[in-house]
Structure formats: C-alpha cells, structure tokens
C-alpha cells in the first residue's frame, strides 16, 4: 500500500512557540485514521499542514507524493470538512448551494457552476443520505444534518483523501454514531479518511489507526496496539483504559483520581 499522506520529522512554530514537534505520521491509501488529542494539541494545525496551508519549519510533508503546497489543481483530490463553528448557520443558503461550493475550487476564478457541478453535488448529497434536503435552507437543519452537508461539500469533488476537523462537535451521541458509520461507508469506496477529534472517548471500532497528538504524536498504530502503549497516559496526564467487546475495541479515558478510586 502506498502512503497518501506522509509526514517526517515535522516541526511547526507559532510566534516562536512549538505547536507541532517532530511529527512522523503516515496514512496509507484507503485507511481510516483518527487523531485524538486535547484542545490546543495542534490537531487543526496538523490538518492545515496536510492541506499545505501551513509550511513546517523543519521536516518533510508529502501528499500524493508531492509537498501539498505544490498540489495546484490536484488540491481537488483532497476533501476538507472544517470545524462547524466557522460558519453562520443562519446564513441564507440552500443545502445544494453549500454543497456546490465544494466544486468552486476546481472551477477557478469567475466561472459559475454548471449542470455537471449540480449533478455532482446531488450525487454527494445522495452518498451522505440527505438528497431530500437539497432545497432546504441551511438554517432549518439539525446539527447532524448540517454536518452531513459539509461532508457532502467535501465529497462533491470526489476526493481521494477526506480530512475532518472535530466533525462530531455539538452532535448528540446517537447522531455521532451514525456519522461514524457514514465515514466508514465513504472509506469503503476507497477514500482515505483522516479525522481529528478531542473526543478521546471516540469509539475506535470504526478506525484502522489511532494517533494521539499533544504537540508530539505519541501513539500511532492499530487500536489494539495503542492499548498496549502507556504513552497515552503520559500525554493526557490521565490513564487510558481499553475494553474489548469482540471485534469492537473501545477506548476510554478517565482522569487519574477517578481511576484510583476504581482501583481500591
């Protein structure tokens, strides 16, 4: 399997302070990777490095075999779902118009979306299961539905790599669950998925690899391997426990104090 994303010894500074330290990370084609870490751990920065928006001070980044800032038109091979808080949900736009924005980059300056773009947008909406909402104003959707709209926007260019930044923030657990199922379905179509989240309780039964980030990337492996690693505890100042339910390993993280009580 070839690597879609490859980072080697990547350092990123903001105003002289290290945000990412010596990150070595890779995602193979068709893999579902989850990067977990607390707020301020550098998760969004990591995604921006992969997108080519931030250039590292040191180290090497390759996406589809080239540095991401040199991707040019190939940018369209990456789909990106930013954090939900970044947009105003009352913005007067219909769902289809939002999804069409995914096609804007490939269209270039001054060109309007045409029938082919509209078709691709509808296909993307079908894939995430909300084609019936195409004509609805964004403001009338639930948090979970809105998140699907942004995934559809990312999918509208038929990307080979999908990056998601905290996609389940503000979504209730049941909706999150079905959202992960959706990502799993997308991955099965051959798309490489990288999702960052501060939700360390994320059920890892959906992902192939868990990487834990807190400026440094500490653990990197299959969920079962992560479980064997004590480094996670160091990273969060808390202990991580993992439970097996057949083929569905769950990762649970609790504060030290709580854990000690449990040990009595």
């Amino acid at each position: 399997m070839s690597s879609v994303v490859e980072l080697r010894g990547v350092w990123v500074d903001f105003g002289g302070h290290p945000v990412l330290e010596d990150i070595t990370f890779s995602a193979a084609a068709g893999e579902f990777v989850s990067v977990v870490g607390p707020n301020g751990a550098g998760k969004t920065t990591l995604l921006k490095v992969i997108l080519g928006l931030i250039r590292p001070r040191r180290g090497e980044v390759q996406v589809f075999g080239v540095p991401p800032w040199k991707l040019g038109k190939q940018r369209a091979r990456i789909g990106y779902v930013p954090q939900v808080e970044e947009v105003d949900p009352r913005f007067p736009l219909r769902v289809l118009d939002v999804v069409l924005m995914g096609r804007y980059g490939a269209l270039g300056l001054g060109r309007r979306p045409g029938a082919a773009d509209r078709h691709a947008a509808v296909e993307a909406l079908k894939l995430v299961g909300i084609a019936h909402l195409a004509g609805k104003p964004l403001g009338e959707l639930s948090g979970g539905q809105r998140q699907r709209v942004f995934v559809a926007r990312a999918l509208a260019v038929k990307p080979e790599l999908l990056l998601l930044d905290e996609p389940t923030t503000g979504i209730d657990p049941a909706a999150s669950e079905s959202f992960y199922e959706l990502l799993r379905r997308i991955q099965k179509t051959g798309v490489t998925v990288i999702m960052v989240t501060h939700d360390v309780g994320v059920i890892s039964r959906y992902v192939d690899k868990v990487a834990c980030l807190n400026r440094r990337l500490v653990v990197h492996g299959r969920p079962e391997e992560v479980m064997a690693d004590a480094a996670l505890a160091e990273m969060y100042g808390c202990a991580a426990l993992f439970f097996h339910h057949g083929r569905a390993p769950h990762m649970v993280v609790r504060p030290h104090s709580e854990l000690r009580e449990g040990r009595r």
Partner: protein
Amino acid sequence: MSFLGYVFMQRALIAGALIGAGAGTVGVYVVLRGFSFIGAGIAHAAFGGVAIAFLVGMDPLLGALVFSLLVAWGIAYTSRRAAIKEEVAVGVLFATSMALGIFLLSFIRGPRVDLLGYLFGNILAVSSRDLVLSFVLAGVVFLAVLFLYKEFLFIVFDPGMAEVAGFPVGLLQGALLSLVALTVVLSLRVVGAVLVAALLVIPAATAYQLVRDFHKMVFLSACIGVLEVIGGLIISFYLDTPSGPTIVLLSASLFGLVLLFRKGTR
C-alpha cells in the same frame, strides 16, 4: 409641474436608481459578513477625501474615491495581518477622517463648500458630470459582482474553506471592500457621508428578513434599494427635506414594518 419636470430631479432619480441597486447588492455581503461598521468607516474616510480634494483643487468625488479605496485596502490588509484589531483600526479611522475633513474645509476661503451636502446629501447636487461618474462606478460594481459572484459568496460564507480551495482570499476581501468604497462614492452626493452606511445595511437587512436563499436575497435587496432611494428622493422633493435622512428614514420604516410582520418566524 411634477417632480419629473425638473432636470436636477431627473438626474437625481437616475443616480438614485444606480445608488439603490449598487448599495442593495453590495449591502448583502456587508450584512452577511457583519462588516456594517467597516462600511461606516469607509464612508467617513470618503468625506476626508472630499476635503483634501477641495484643498488641492481636484474633483471632490475623485478625491473621495482615492481616499476611500486606500482605506478599504488598508482595512483589508490590517484584518489579514492582525497587528491591531480591525474594529479598533476602523474606530480610529472613523473619527480621524471626519475630523480631518472638517478641519481642512475650515481653511477654504472664497465660495463656501456645501459641507452639509456632503455630509447629509443634497438632491440638487448631482451634476451631469457626477452622473457620468455614477454610471462608471455602478458599472464597475455590477461587473465585479457579476464576475466574482461565487468568489464573494464563498469568502463571506466560509473564508477558511475558500482558502483551502485555493482562492486568493486576501485579494478578494480587498476587492469586496473596494466595492463598498465605490458604492460610498457613488452615493455621496445624494445620501451623504454620514448616512451612506445605513444604505449599505438596511435594504439587505430587510431582504434577509424575507428570504432564505442567497440569490433571491441579492435580487430582492437591490430592488428594495432602488425603491427606497427613489421613494426617498420623491418625498424629499415634496417636503423640501435633505435627501439622505429622508431616504434612510423611509428605509428604516420599511425595515421596521417587515420586522413587525415577520416577528417570531426567524
């Protein structure tokens, strides 16, 4: 004789239609991006430009154009570099350019400058030369919106994503603020520097109450803008009131009515 019989009124109405459509269209981006305050800042800067132009013997509207464009790009640059908060920069600029304008104008001797006209609009002020400039300014605004329609929508709705998609977000923001500057200069004669910011906000805010589709909002806001400026000019003609405040009061009344009828649904 009806108001249509007067040449100054014919010119004011033609300029008014261009102003209403321009401000209504650009106003949609102003309202949705939440930079009403920046619009006010640019408008006040335009007044400073008028005063400087008078001192150096330039066409006052050209002075306003140069000065407000400089300020527009200054704000766009500040907001990208974030050396100081954009809001603070506008706040300083706002009062300074107004003070500069009035300070400089107090040195001008000879024929009195129509200070009130530039501040609050004058229905008699639109010369045939101004009308030509209005057509040029409005033409640039409409062509720019037509060509960069999806780009402006993108940077207003989701600038982060626009950047990811490879659009030059900083330049587009500067271009959008330039359109605000052009609209301000376009409106300066009829509406005045103090009140033009209202025209950039009220028609779009009224349209926002009525529709939830961006494309319809642009169209409706432009229509409301034309209606309000033309209506305000006619009322101003009959009541012999300054045109700027009359237009703004009419716009605000319509906005109030719409709010009242739409209450609770949004």
